[in-house]
């Protein structure tokens, strides 16, 4: 499957890459035990720093999405379950966004509607990237 990184986006490259890989796993385009390209190959194809790709692989490994073999490289694991401490991390990531949206007078209904839209979008995006 093909992933795209927008070099001129305000979202950091590592975040885009991480989201793209998780999205591919979520949609089933990368299934368990599939191998990922080598750090060097992926960085070379994208034209981005080797450290960026390595960092993303390490983050994904820590979070349980992939495992890194010394010889075979990176492979997809079964998707990690959401643990209690993980949930706390996501809460702390979401809270500033909720506060900023409220500061700009968004209603609770509008916020929930937005969340629903994003939920659907995440399903569609995973399916369209073939």
């Amino acid at each position, binding site marked *: *499957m*093909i*992933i*795209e*990184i*927008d*070099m*001129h986006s305000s979202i950091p490259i590592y975040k885009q890459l991480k989201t*793209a*890989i998780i999205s*591919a796993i979520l949609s089933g*385009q*990368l299934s368990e035990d*599939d*191998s*990922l*390209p*080598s750090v*060097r*190959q*992926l*960085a*070379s*194809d*994208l*034209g*981005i*720093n*080797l450290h960026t790709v390595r960092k993303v692989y390490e983050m994904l490994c820590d979070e349980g999405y992939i495992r890194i073999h010394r010889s075979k*490289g*990176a*492979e997809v694991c079964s998707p990690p379950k959401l643990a209690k401490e993980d949930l706390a991390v996501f809460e702390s990531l979401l809270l500033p966004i909720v506060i900023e949206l409220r500061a700009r007078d968004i209603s609770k209904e509008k916020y929930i509607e937005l969340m629903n839209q994003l939920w659907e979008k995440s399903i569609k995006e995973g399916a369209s990237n073939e």
Partner: protein
Amino acid sequence: MNSELNYMIGIMGLSWIVVILAVAFTPYFIRKNISFGVSVPETEYANPRFKVLRRTYSVDCIVVGLILGVASSVCYIWITVETAVWIQLVSIFLYLAFSFLFYFSMRKKVRSIKQESDWPIDSKAVAELSGEKTSGKTIHTAWYLFYLVVIAVAVIAVVLKYPSLPDQIPMHYNIAGEVDRYAQKSIGIFAVMPIIQLLIGLMFAGINVAIRTSKRQRDFNRSNAFRGVLSVTLFAIGCMVMILLTCVQLAMVSFINEKLMMVLPIAFLIATTAICVYLAIKVGQGGSRLKGTYGKPAEAVDDDSHWIGGFLYFNKKDPSVFVEKRFGIGYTLNFGNPVSMLVGAALLVLIAALLILPLIIK
């Protein structure tokens, strides 16, 4: 002497035809979404304005090539062969300089067309996320051990024959297959060829690694297929070079007929040309002309800002060393990467060694 003259004119004429074909038809072998080093939408390949530019470039290159080629080949009749070879070399460089001029004048026109059109600019970086296909079926480096076998054949032959060889070793043959230069028998003159073969073998194995680690274009299926084809072709051409050089060595110790040595280089030249023509017409740069289950070609990513003059890649942020050429078939270096400087230096040293070694035995 007259037949040697014809032989030389024949070889030179053949080389000119190969050079002219390669230079003049380059715009047709490369990716359709790159026109004279400028990235354009794939559909614009059929644009009549671009068609005219391509045709003008080809016609100009053929006309100038024919004039220079005929002029420099015919001059063998009046001057010594050695001077004529120099004139040939200078003419070929002159020809490449002319083709550069034509390239730049066409490039200027393409850029102005691009400026006045509002084509969507896609500067997204893309990658393929499946691991098993990433190396694109290039052949394994271990295959190159076969070259050692070919080299060993020559070495063993020399070792077996050395004691029974005469003091004077034939070094050069004329067209009639008669020896016209001898050298004093020594281990040195037989050691040079295996060293040259080793260096060439090393270079081929290195290029194979370069193919495997090259940056792929958005058209991943084709990029992968291209790598595979190129890797196999490279190995085959390398085999031919190795066998040819081993035959030269075998002829030196009169294991094979020297008449055969007149035919082999020409056969090699024809075979290599045929392979290159096949690559250009059936495969195309980056596999862009491959037909079959590759789907429709993907649009290129517009990274023109990193291409100096449209043909020199300079991108400090890109960790790639080998990238697809934009005007021609094969790969070029990312000059923004310090590793490329090392690779370039190594290549220069290798070429220098290959040029100097044969001079030592003289």
